[in-house]
């Protein structure tokens, strides 16, 4: 379990990134922080592995204040997947994946064997093991990034807009893979994005942030769609534009779901609710 207790982050220049944020994230939960730039979402996520130190308040992992833990050991125990992969360009795919296990003192051979398994898990051709990041496509690089994040088998996985830099088709492929992975692995995931559709797709719960790390609404995607807390949330999720308002039209004896602009979104399964 991860707990934020009244955390605040103020930068020396006087910029207030996060005002006062409290939240509990359950173990094995996938929580998505979503907001526009300046919402403090990345700042909050980076407090978990002490890449950012709060100015006030505490972050607890299973009851332990992270401020009391050695930052290097803490970071090695938490998976971190970042935007544009952040891979080491001078190391091969295999060496990138084994970074953390090797830092933790795992024997090289053991780490490499596990890395090969992980490459399969994240859907990478094992033949890519000896390639360098620059020889991979953006989507492949992100998969390597995910494999690296998982290499030390951490309980917690931090993901900072990991699919932000790839094209939409690859992005939805990676999102589906992450769903499948999470179904198998049940990690505690803190995922940061500015894309509300991605947030609803991947989050067990979603936190919509206003500028300054202020929580506009927390809840499951269903709860947020059913009852947006205010106009800000409604506008953020697109409810105000009718983008989320679907209705059913009868076509050739089947129920077709259509959005506010009349574009077909899908076919209704089962009985039409009356």
């Amino acid at each position, binding site marked *: 379990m991860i707990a934020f207790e009244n955390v605040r982050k103020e930068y020396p220049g006087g910029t207030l990134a996060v005002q006062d944020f409290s939240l509990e994230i359950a173990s094995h939960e996938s929580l998505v922080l979503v907001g526009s730039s300046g919402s403090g979402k990345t700042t909050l996520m980076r407090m978990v*592995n002490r*890449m950012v130190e709060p100015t006030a308040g505490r972050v607890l992992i299973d009851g332990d204040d992270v401020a009391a833990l050695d930052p290097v050991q803490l*970071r090695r125990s938490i998976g971190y997947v970042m935007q*544009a992969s952040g*891979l080491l*360009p001078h*190391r091969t795919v295999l060496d990138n994946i084994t970074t953390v296990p090797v830092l933790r003192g795992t024997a090289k051979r053991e780490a490499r064997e596990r890395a090969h398994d992980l490459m399969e898990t994240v859907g990478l051709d094992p033949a890519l093991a000896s390639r360098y990041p620059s020889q991979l496509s953006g989507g492949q690089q992100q998969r390597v990034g995910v494999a690296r994040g998982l290499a030390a088998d951490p309980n917690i996985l931090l993901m900072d807009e990991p699919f932000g830099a790839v094209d939409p088709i690859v992005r939805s492929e990676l999102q589906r893979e992450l769903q499948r992975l999470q179904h198998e692995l049940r990690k505690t995931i803190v995922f940061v994005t500015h894309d509300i559709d991605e947030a609803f797709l991947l989050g067990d719960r979603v936190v919509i942030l206003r500028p300054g790390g202020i929580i506009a609404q927390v809840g499951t995607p269903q709860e947020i769609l059913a009852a947006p807390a205010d106009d800000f949330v409604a506008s953020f999720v697109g409810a105000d534009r009718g983008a989320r308002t679907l209705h059913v039209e009868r076509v050739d004896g089947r129920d077709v779901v259509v959005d506010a602009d009349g574009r077909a979104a899908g076919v209704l399964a089962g009985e039409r609710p009356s």
Partner: protein
Amino acid sequence: MNDSPFVESLRWLAEPSRWSGPAGIPLRTLEHLGYTALGILLAALLAIPLGLAVGHTGRFKGLVVATAGAARALPTLGLVTLFALLMGIGLTAPLLSFVILAIPSLLAGAYSAVESADRATVDAARAQGMTELQVLTRVELPLGMPLLIGGVRGATVQVVATAMLAAYVGNGGLGRYIFQGLGSQNYPQMIAGSLLVIALALVLDLALLLIQRLSTPRGLRAA
């Protein structure tokens, strides 16, 4: 008819007796290389760790850049003379001057090498749990190695070209031919000595250029 001093100097170089013995060209060249290597080594021991620290932490950068810039402006002949007056004839005075001459290039090479690493890559390395020393030695240094070697290359060429000043205060090296020639108005010998220094500088420059090329990490060359 008298040949030009330039042709005379080539004749001087072609004389087989010059290429052996304690005052011969091979030994003088070795002495010259020795002074250069010693100067670069001592300067590197000081400047490279300092440059790496400045590049990694970003602290005292302004101070170091300004000091290195000022050191570049010092006339080496003046330094050798001054140090020789203070410390007497011998190797200490010229060596100290070579160290001062080499430091700015080495310092600039070292801190720019570290600074050149992509900040996102460095941030990722730290977020994976690398210690600051590991970030430096496993990420910043390998990625910046060509720039570091570039600094060594610049310093080496400067020092090898200046190392003839060692002979000005009674030492060996290729400078002996130049200062002996100057004393006895033997201009062909002076030119020959200069040609040898120029050739040595060019050879070292090319050798270090090759090393610089080879030091580019494979993953970056593949791009």
